[in-house]
């Protein structure tokens, strides 16, 4: 047996012009989450508890696109989704369309542990969370000023953005860019 191991991610598809201080902030958060997972593993917590613990931490910090700091819908609201799977017995739980549960990953865990199903969505997921006294917050809690700005850019560029943190100046949102890659004006890739 090879001992414990842990990997975390905060999303793929990064703005090539992400400022250095933002990159540093991301690295510090990833290091913090790794250390959280490592100490849990050293205390012999099972893998399923460790993945939930680490993703909860990532949902609570607004830096990445989940929980607080989630991407916004076309209406400027937040609809979150999450899933969790235990390789030991291949048990799993998932939720979608969650708008007021503070930690969607814990609701997915609850679906896995406390329901006869593996996936609950929208009003069913919210009702299940209420029934089990999960921590609920207003949808506003998840919305950040950064993301309001990102949504505005996306609308001006008439596009849908995934995980990119595209800066205001280089997105060229106001200008009709002839070439688009991954839904972004090619100018974003110009440096490359």
């Amino acid at each position, binding site marked *: 047996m090879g001992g414990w191991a842990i*990997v975390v991610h905060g999303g793929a598809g990064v703005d090539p012009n992400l400022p250095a201080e933002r990159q540093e902030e991301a690295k510090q958060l990833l290091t913090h989450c790794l250390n959280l997972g490592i100490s849990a593993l050293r205390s012999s917590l099972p893998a399923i508890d460790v993945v939930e613990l680490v993703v909860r931490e990532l949902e609570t910090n607004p830096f990445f696109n989940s929980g607080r700091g989630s991407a916004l819908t076309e209406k400027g609201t937040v609809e979150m989704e999450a899933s969790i*799977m235990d390789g*030991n017995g291949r048990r799993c739980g998932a939720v979608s369309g969650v708008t007021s549960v503070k930690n969607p990953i814990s609701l997915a865990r609850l679906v896995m542990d406390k329901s006869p199903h593996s996936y609950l*969505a929208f009003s069913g997921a919210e009702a299940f969370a209420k029934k089990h006294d999960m921590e609920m917050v207003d949808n506003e809690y998840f919305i950040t000023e950064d993301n309001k700005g990102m949504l505005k850019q996306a609308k001006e560029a008439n596009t849908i953005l995934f995980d990119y943190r595209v800066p205001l100046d280089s997105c060229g949102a106001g200008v009709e860019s002839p070439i688009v890659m991954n839904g972004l004006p090619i100018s974003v890739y110009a440096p490359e």
Partner: protein
Amino acid sequence: TVGCAVVDSQGRCAAATSTGGLMNKMMGRIGDSPLIGAGTYACDLCGVSCTGEGEAIIRGTLARDVAAVMEYKGLGLQEAVDFVVKERLDEGKAGLIAVSKTGEVAYGFNCVGMFRGCATEDGFMEVGIWE
């Protein structure tokens, strides 16, 4: 999107993924993150969490495919990750992280950067963004 894959000292694997989805997405849009076998998968061989263009990850059943090529083609963890990122995404852009029951860590992505960090019991630890 955020995710975590872990193998504990008993060799048990697990994976978890959580997201707000796509900026400016339609109401009611479901991505890969909640779909078991697409954005998240774990079995006795490995644990996998994916991120990126959800529609491409769903079509490629990305997370399950890492476990499948390990199981049926006998690939090691990093080989399986590289194979799936290279062969299953078509024009889609995505990344994934994975652990194996034998305590290995691996990740792969075909887009501009991925925020990731990994650590193993023998002291290895890495945090990165770019290639």
